[in-house]
């Protein structure tokens, strides 16, 4: 299995995926940095700096949320289906390695890439934002709780995409998973808007249903909420409408996401195990 992990990593290096992704991430962080520099200091209202810092942090985290999902999809989308199309698996599967090990090796190897990407993006954004506006996040614990949610988001999208890769063609898989992530975001956004404008069960139900479908958005909202801790002004988060977390998902959603990821991984192992190559 270690061999498969190593060669999966080697593949992303060889295909210059890591170089390209690293370069683009750097560019993104640089732009974020320059943007914050040019925007300059906010008006000297009480709490103005904090509100500005929070706004830009939320903007950045939204971008990170989308980019991580996209990155995970791109990294994993062809991981199995592409190798089936190419015929590279034909020589690998007959070797004395169980199919489950093969899948786990791929999963671990490529997940390392996704999680590294998440880490750089997340801490890069927070650091740049706080360098400009002072402390915005609640504290180290809050920071890492939020970070954990983003990691889980990356892992979850990765696993779902891997499952798709054992089931369908590369293109279909990419479209299905990205659409699911988008739908989950829309569901979450509606839930937040609903909580602001017309509190009632209808919007909550929409949020729930989409979160059960794929809990990426729930993880993102929970990260938005957790990163602040008690540091936030009461109602500070209310101003962000569909990009905020007035109505943050509870702990249960995180457990659900962990179970969901695990379940998807098991499903992947099973579906690859019974697949004819």
């Amino acid at each position, binding site marked *: 299995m270690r*061999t498969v992990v190593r*060669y999966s990593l080697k*593949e992303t290096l*060889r*295909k210059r995926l890591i170089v390209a992704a690293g370069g683009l991430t750097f560019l993104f962080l640089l732009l974020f940095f320059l943007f914050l520099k040019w925007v300059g200091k906010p008006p000297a209202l009480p709490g103005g700096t904090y509100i500005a810092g929070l706004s830009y942090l939320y903007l950045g985290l939204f971008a990170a949320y989308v980019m991580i999902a996209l990155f995970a999809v791109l990294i994993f989308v062809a991981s199995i289906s592409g190798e089936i199309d*190419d*015929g*590279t698996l*034909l*020589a*690998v*599967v*007959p*070797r*004395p*390695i*169980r199919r489950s090990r093969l899948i786990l090796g791929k999963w671990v190897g490529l997940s390392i890439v996704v999680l590294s990407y998440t880490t750089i993006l997340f801490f890069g954004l927070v650091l740049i934002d706080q360098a400009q506006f002072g402390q915005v996040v609640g504290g180290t614990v809050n920071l890492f709780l939020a970070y954990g949610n983003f990691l889980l988001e990356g892992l979850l999208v990765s696993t779902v995409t891997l499952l798709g890769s054992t089931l369908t063609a590369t293109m279909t898989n990419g479209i299905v998973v990205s659409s699911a992530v988008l739908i989950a975001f829309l569901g979450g956004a509606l839930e937040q808007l609903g909580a602001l404008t017309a509190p009632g069960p209808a919007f909550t139900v929409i949020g729930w249903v989409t979160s059960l479908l794929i809990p990426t958005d729930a993880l993102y909202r929970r990260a938005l909420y957790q990163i602040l801790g008690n540091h936030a002004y009461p109602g500070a988060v209310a101003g962000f409408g569909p990009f905020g977390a007035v109505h943050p998902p509870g702990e249960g959603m995180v457990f659900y996401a962990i179970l969901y990821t695990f379940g998807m991984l098991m499903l992947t192992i099973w579906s690859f195990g*019974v697949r*004819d*190559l």
Partner: protein
Amino acid sequence: MKAIQTLGLTKTFRQRVACDHINLSVNQGEIFGLLGPNGAGKSTLVKMLVGLVNPSAGSARVLGYSFREMAPRKRMGYLPELFRYQPWLTADEVLAFHAQLLKTPLPQGEREALLDRVGLRGRGYERVKAFSKGMQQRLGLAVALVGKPDLIFLDEPTSALDPIGRHEVSELLQELRQDGVTIFLNSHLLSDVEKLCDSVALIDGGQVLYQGSLQDAIYGGVRRYRVQVEGLTAEGAEAMQAGPHAAVVQWGAKLRAEIRVSLMREDLPQVVQQLVDLGVKVYEVEPDHSSLEDWFLSRIGKDAR
């Protein structure tokens, strides 16, 4: 112990039966040829044996183990029919990768020797992406040989090779047989099969139409030979034609002639002796090459359609 023994191995893809209760056995150390028209189920059978396709029913034993176990796979090599190796690796790295999957050491010297053996000397450090089809197939052979397997499955190993390559592969297979390796060969090149295989099976529509020795398959023991001679006289020719083997004499330039006889292999020395006694120079004795093809065509035409 048989190298391979299948018991009612069956594969159904949706409604299509690709392999239908296949019972085959392959002896250790022999070259076994699996013949059959396109879509007969040859590749599917091999894929079941190497763990790529899950059978719908039946079982098999490979090298004494159940084919579902990992143990026999350490001693197996497989060259798929349609495949590519990781295009972003070099040929050398592909071999190293497979050695690691087998958990067997394969130092650089041995990797080079393997590439050399399949005619890829000096190409080890090029990316597989840039390999031609035939070079990929040669690399595939090298990969199948990683770890010195006891059993090798080759699914049309020479389909992309030039005539020299085909010849080299024939020689390679004969060397391997001498080393005691069992070879399971899928091929449409009947002349190669005829030259190499100890036993054959013919399948069509997923069913085994014949299994047995190659000799028995084609001639039921009797085989046609062409004998190239010089110095045959008219009386000699008459004597031959009157003999028990239904000899046919075809005259060539000068005193050269080709004699065609149908006989058991054991009787061949006797005929040659007879010719020598007649004062005839024997230049060449060769089996008639179209025979396996004739047999193939007749069997497939008769039984399946």
